């Protein structure tokens, strides 16, 4: 995190060599990087080639209405070697939670980095932006909105880290007192990479940064702006418990036989089928586990509005509201209207009976 502007012109390959890193170590690093970016091993030589020539970009990290969980997640990234290498090779010029400087000094650093790396720097955002009253969240007296718009103006790209920045997240949940919105609701003219999750998987954050560092491009994104390499498949599709779903074997409660046998958690409200993230493969805590592996259904935290999705413990196929009552009232109302309509029908029919002219043989022809 030291500011060494002279190093910005050197490539990552040069930097590594100057640190005495062997080619073999570099290859190992590339393999780990490929794994981290969820790229196939066949990409390793390409990555090696790209990394060799990569130049370290300047990164400005903006934290708005957030809980610092995302930063916590990032700093808990367990691939320490890789992480340190990556972070040694980027220039994190502004991160008000992590940086030593504070107040005006910090803001000065941000402005300086923006000026020096005009149109080349990367903006990372965590947290949503309050649109109701700017006073809900300010930094050094600057509203989140102003800071975002100002910083984004000359950014090469924006990476939103966490569901709050990507989709509004928990601040955006009903009733959304601060009028929280996502970065993409404000910034329309810059490429935005959404790294959603509450928090996002650390490896996914570093993976996306590495991608930008390595290739200098925006990865392939899904319709919600999330990198397809990590968000291309649903939790459900990659879940090791999927075979139980297909067989129709479900845990019915958290402590039943099915739960102990590791059966599918669909009935306990698992949002895996509608959630796109890499948890099932990348896992958490250095590949130790992920929520479903620990026996808890996925809550769908990487999806927009996950907090208002009708309850974490209600299966997706279950209506969010009480239909039984609706059905009973409707049946009663329907029967009442039906009886009324039927009565009208009967009245009509008996009127027809009264209007009946006896048919005689003289009435058979016109």
């Amino acid at each position, binding site marked *: 995190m030291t500011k060494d502007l002279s190093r910005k012109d050197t490539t990552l390959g040069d930097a590594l060599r100057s640190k005495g890193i062997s080619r073999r170590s570099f290859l190992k690093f590339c393999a780990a990087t490929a794994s981290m970016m969820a790229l196939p091993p066949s990409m390793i030589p390409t990555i090696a080639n790209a990394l060799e020539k990569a130049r370290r970009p300047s990164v400005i990290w903006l934290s708005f209405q957030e809980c610092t969980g995302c930063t916590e997640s990032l700093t808990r990234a367990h691939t320490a070697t890789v992480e340190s290498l990556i972070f040694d090779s980027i220039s994190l010029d502004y991160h008000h939670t992590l940086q030593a400087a504070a107040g005006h000094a910090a803001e000065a650093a941000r402005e300086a980095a923006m000026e020096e790396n005009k149109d080349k720097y990367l903006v990372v955002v965590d947290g949503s932006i309050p649109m109701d009253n700017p006073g809900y969240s300010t930094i050094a007296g600057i509203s989140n909105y102003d800071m975002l718009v100002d910083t984004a103006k000359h950014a090469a790209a924006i990476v939103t880290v966490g569901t709050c920045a990507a989709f509004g997240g928990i601040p955006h949940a009903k009733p959304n007192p601060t009028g929280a919105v996502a970065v993409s609701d404000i910034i329309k003219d810059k490429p935005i990479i959404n790294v959603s999750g509450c928090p996002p998987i650390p490896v996914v954050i570093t993976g996306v940064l590495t991608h930008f560092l390595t290739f200098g491009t925006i990865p392939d994104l899904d319709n*919600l702006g999330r990198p397809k390499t990590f968000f291309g498949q649903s939790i459900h599709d990659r879940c090791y418990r999927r075979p139980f779903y297909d067989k129709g074997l479900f845990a019915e409660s958290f402590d039943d036989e099915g739960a102990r046998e590791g059966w599918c958690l669909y009935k306990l409200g698992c949002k895996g089928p509608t959630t*796109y993230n890499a948890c099932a493969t990348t896992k958490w805590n250095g590949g130790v586990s992920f929520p479903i592996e620990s026996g808890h259904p996925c809550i769908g935290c990487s999806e927009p509005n996950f907090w208002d999705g009708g309850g974490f413990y209600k299966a*997706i196929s*279950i209506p*969010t*509201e009480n*239909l*039984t009552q609706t*059905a009973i009232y409707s049946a009663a109302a329907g029967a009442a209207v039906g009886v009324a*309509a039927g009565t009208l029908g009967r009245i009509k029919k008996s009127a027809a009976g009264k209007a009946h002219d006896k048919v005689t043989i003289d009435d058979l022809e016109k």
Partner: protein
Amino acid sequence: MTETELLTWARGPGFQIATVIFVLGIALRIAEIVMMGRRGNLAEPKGSAMSSGLRTVFSRTVPDASTFKRSAFTVTAGYIFHIGLFVVIFLFAPHILFFKDLLHISWPALPSTVIDATSVVTIITLIVILVHRLKDPVKRFLSNFDDYLGWFVTILPLVTGYIAFHRVGMSAPSLIAIHILSVQLLMIVFPFTKLMHAFTIFLARWYNGAISGYRGVQS
């Protein structure tokens, strides 16, 4: 509206609206039918209307051999898609959860692979049935908008369900939302089309069996 919002809407207000129209419509129509009443039969009975009516409710499910031969396609295709619909609607685990939430009763599910295969067979059968309806002189003659609408709203949830299960083309929340919305379309259209036969068939068969049974013939 985000896709999650759409899904949440479908699972919430969407289901409320559809349920009101579906249940209210069905109750209304059944009440309307029953309220019309029937005159009592003054002729001396030769058999029991009640027991014969009840038997016909079930026995009419199976045609006699000669009728089967004459209407082999209609009967076979009808069987396949009705059984297919039953299996797909009532024996798929997520659907059972829905009914459990609604009715507070549950029953075992079939493996999703079986449901998957059944839905393919059902979809294909329904397509063949449509082609038949368009080609067969009698069916084409009898068919009106109701028949095609009924067909469409029946096959739609099958297709959207199949796509949602396999996650083709769109993201899962959108696909599931579309599937649920297509079911709601079915529910809304249901009481006002020939789909009502799913309920009135019991009345109709009972009346048929009762009329005939009173005269001593098991129909």
